[in-house]
């Protein structure tokens, strides 16, 4: 590794070692170590991959603990020149928006490795997963526009091989479709990136890909900004995927091996929505404001359409895949509501979706492993043979539906209020998505887990302890984030607030609508807050009184 990569500048939180570079470097090093190992010992390979990804995960959690909660700015900033003649640099940082996505990546990869097994060729499988981890981490921490694009593109290669090499029947077709669709959608983004950089070169003093500089310059004319944004939006819409560019997703998800699906849903789809927030809203606030109705519509259509199509699926994995389309619709909705609540909900929901859909894919993978089918019609009564699995499935499913008290609710609720205050009717239609989600998931659950068990269904093996322990961190997060989301929300909020302020400052006549006074989920907290506010108001009044008294006293004194 070049020492340049590790040149650390002092950030808001600057621990003693380069946190962000190591998040990228450790998986790469693990991949290199795996490359050197003999292919015959699958168990050692798995252990190595697990250790490498866990260390990365631990570092990401360490970063979370070191993160300054109230700070809206970038933290853990690392900068090193890469190609100075065009202004390209390794500019890595996190803020409240990317923080939890990094942690999610750090947690989801070890779990995906722990809970699934490749059936052949373990060595390249683990190498690809580790490279995928490095790429995903890189994409979330890159604050250099081009560096983001690098990681955004490079993750295609490992994913392509994972789907194509370890997937199911239609894997080659799905892998090819996935690669080409994504590459095609992001091809014009590179032209967009180049354009925005050179068009802002005068304002930024020479070409630079530094997102913060480009965002504060806002040097593009309206038409140029519109065109460049569209080139970005195409890439992000497809990656998210928002309706109507979602067609690659069911294929890729269904054909991918379980770990691939988990990572695809949990981490890689977030690249699209994260891109919208970081590089869409931040760089082109006025265009985003103009086009918001279009994307709100796409979001709502995605929610209803995804849910409707999911209801019709006969394949359990495909059903979960379409449920992703619906969930990602919610996130798009939250982003383009363009207010603190909506954006906050969107960021939180990205994490929630990663957790619950990731867990769902793991469960579906286990069912497939035991029963060799994903057809809902072929399943039934699994609950009797596998009560523990049924219990876990229920919890995860309810979280995906958005049951209050579990994580999904908090995010969806914030998104819906945010949207409601920005664009009422969209929220109304979107809310039906929650009901539809209950419909398709519960119905699928009922058909596969309830009823009489016949044939192999009656003798299906329940979860092993190791499997349960593997998925339990996700279960814990589902409950924890549902009951007590405050530590997450309070870290997201400052960054999101700042973003909304940035939008307000750069868009004429745009002002964030008065938020509906529900900042946190949970009535107890509300009451608590109201009490606190009341007390504070009281205190202030008392202070005022006191001050007034003192003033009169001193006046009297002066008079004397």
């Amino acid at each position, binding site marked *: 590794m070049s020492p340049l990569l590790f040149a650390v500048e002092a950030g808001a939180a600057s621990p003693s070692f380069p946190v962000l570079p190591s998040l990228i470097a450790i998986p790469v090093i693990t991949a290199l170590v795996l490359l050197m190992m003999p292919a015959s010992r699958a168990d050692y390979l798995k252990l190595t991959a697990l250790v490498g990804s866990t260390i990365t995960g631990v570092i990401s959690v360490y970063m979370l603990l070191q993160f300054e909660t109230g700070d809206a700015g970038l933290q853990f900033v690392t900068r090193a020149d890469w190609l*100075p003649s065009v202004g390209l640099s390794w500019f890595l940082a996190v803020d409240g928006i990317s923080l939890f996505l990094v942690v999610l990546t750090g947690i989801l990869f070890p779990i995906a490795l722990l809970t699934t097994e490749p059936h052949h060729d373990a060595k390249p499988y683990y190498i690809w997963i580790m490279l995928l981890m490095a790429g995903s981490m890189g994409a979330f921490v890159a604050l250099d526009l081009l560096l983001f694009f690098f990681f955004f593109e490079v993750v295609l290669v490992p994913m392509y091989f994972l789907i194509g090499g370890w997937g199911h029947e239609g894997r080659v077709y799905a892998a090819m479709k996935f690669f080409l669709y994504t590459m095609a959608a992001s091809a*014009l983004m590179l032209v967009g990136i*180049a354009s925005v950089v050179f068009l802002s070169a005068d304002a930024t003093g020479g070409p630079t890909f530094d997102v913060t500089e480009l965002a504060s310059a806002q040097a593009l004319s309206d038409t140029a900004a519109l065109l460049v944004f569209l080139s970005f939006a195409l890439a992000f819409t497809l990656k998210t995927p928002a309706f109507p560019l979602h067609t690659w997703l069911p294929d890729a998800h269904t054909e991918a091996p379980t770990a691939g699906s988990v990572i695809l849903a949990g981490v890689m789809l977030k690249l699209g929505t994260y891109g919208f927030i970081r590089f869409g809203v931040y760089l082109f606030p006025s265009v985003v404001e103009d086009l918001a109705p279009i994307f709100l519509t796409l979001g709502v259509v995605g929610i209803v359409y995804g849910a409707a199509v999911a209801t019709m699926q006969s394949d359990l994995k495909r059903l979960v895949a379409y449920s992703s389309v619906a969930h990602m619709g919610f996130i798009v909705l939250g982003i383009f509501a363009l207010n603190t609540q909506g954006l906050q909900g969107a960021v939180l929901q990205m994490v929630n979706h990663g957790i619950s859909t990731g867990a769902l894919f793991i469960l579906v993978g286990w069912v497939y492993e035991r029963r060799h089918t994903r057809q809902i019609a072929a399943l039934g009564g699994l609950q009797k043979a596998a009560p523990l699995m049924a219990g876990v499935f229920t919890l995860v499913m309810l979280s995906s539906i958005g049951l209050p008290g579990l994580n999904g609710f908090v995010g969806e609720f914030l998104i819906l209020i945010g949207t409601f205050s920005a664009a009422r009717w969209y929220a109304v239609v979107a809310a039906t998505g929650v009901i539809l989600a209950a419909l398709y998931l519960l119905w699928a659950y009922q058909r596969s887990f309830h009823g009489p068990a016949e044939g192999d269904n009656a003798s299906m093996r329940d979860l092993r302890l190791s499997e349960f322990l593997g998925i339990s961190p996700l279960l814990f997060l589902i409950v924890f984030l549902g009951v007590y989301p405050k530590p997450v929300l309070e870290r997201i909020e400052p960054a999101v607030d700042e973003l909304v302020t940035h939008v307000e400052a750069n868009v004429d006549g745009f002002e964030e609508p008065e938020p509906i006074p529900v900042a946190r989920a949970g009535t107890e907290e509300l009451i608590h807050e109201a009490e606190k506010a009341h007390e504070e108001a009281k205190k202030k009044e008392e202070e005022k009184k006191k001050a007034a008294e003192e003033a009169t006293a001193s006046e009297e004194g002066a008079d004397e």
Partner: protein
Amino acid sequence: MSSILAQDVIAPEIAWSLLAPFAILAIAGVLLVTVTSVYPRLRGGSFPAAFTGTVAAVALATLVPIWERVNGPEGAQLVVANALAVDEYTVFITAVICIAVFFAAMLLDEYLRRENLDGPEWYVLLLMSAAGGILLASAEDLIVTFLGLEILSIAAYVMAALHLRRLDSQEAGFKYFLLGALASAMLLYGIAMVYGATGFTSLRGIAAAASLTNDAGLSPATDSSLMLAGMALIMIGFAFKVSAVPFHAWTPDVYQGSPTPVVAFMASGVKVAGFAGMVRVFWIGFGPYLNDWRPLIAGLAVLTLVLGSLLALAQTNVKRMLAYSSITHAGFILVAVHAGSSASGSLLGGEAFLFYLLAYTLMVAGTFGVVTVVGGRGDGNHDLSDYVGLSRRSPLLAGMMSILLFAQAGVPFTSGFFAKLRVILAAADDESYVLAGVAMLSAVVAAVLYLRIVVSMFLVDPAAATEDADAAEESVDVDVVVAGDGVLAVPTTAMVAVALATAATLVLGLLPNLGGGVLTDAAETLSSLR
């Protein structure tokens, strides 16, 4: 050696020290043919390949002091009666050509033994062709340009046809020769017209003539129809050499038929030299007529990109696929040429052009190295189905091939990405957004062909594929190693060559700023002369 010759034979004002790379290659060619006829036992074996590789390396090494000189206070030099320029640009292109020679020699060694074609002729022609390429890149006079182009091409025609027992090879050589001769004729006719219009054959003379006026206050070059026709013909001549659409038709056939290591050189060295000559002639000589020829370049670029990538989709022969891919690459390079010739004088286009040539040479040399190995005895296994199961037969080779292919597709962290990136940046700086967009979209289409090869290597089940192949193909070559679980024997030299190319591709992708100053200086020379 060279100093003795310099004193005895040739007039002293020729600056041999500056012309060392050209002289070394040309003299080594003559020497090789002499030595091997005196000592016939040196004809076979690895001697000719080792000799050629060493010569290329020595020529490369002499570039260092030359660079120091031309980059220092002395500056760029015009030598041999101002017919040749030795400047940073020449040095850079010479280096790339030497690299191409080095790789071709490494690939030829085992190939010739495999095909029972051992002999020094191949290497002599290779060295001659490379010497011609250097001449072409440094020519400051259209006559010398033509001379260089012919030396470069005629050697390549012969090499294309040199696989004596393969009819394909004869056909390829013949086709290459006929179409190449046509292109040369056009070029020559163009040169005559330009001379007629301006009264000069030297590039700087032509450029200066644009601002000369005669008694009537008219520029001699105002006879613009003659000048325009001349430039157009010269452009067509070069477009043939770099296989730009619509002058590309020979490329797939010739690439398919020619011996694979020769294709490696044709796709890298010959193309680089062609582009180098084209850029020098147009940027320097026709600089004042920028507005006349620049749109032509843009048009050529669009056609080349779109057709090159689309036509590749229909192919199933890997050599033909790679031929179309090299056409698409030519389109990208043309975009760089277009951006670099903008009136703004930005260096980005020139840098992109040079970086692309270097990255492309390494990628294509490595890729054709793999194709050489897979081709097997008889050089005939070039169907996509011959790549099925390569990941099992030789994981290392398949792995390196996929890195090279992904690099050609422009995946990040490879030199191919930075090559494309630089082109796109240059185009955006020049505000040719449409051109940049077309380039990126055709890169996506081109990615299909690379993915298809990767799919064959990694994702297709060999067992299923052999059944299909047996059912479909009636005539199976006896010598062909049928796709299966057997291990593919990879000759060491070829493996080393591919590994070097792959390593360079990755290094340039991770440290794209490596030698950045060299690129900038070389690009600067060109634009400073405009």
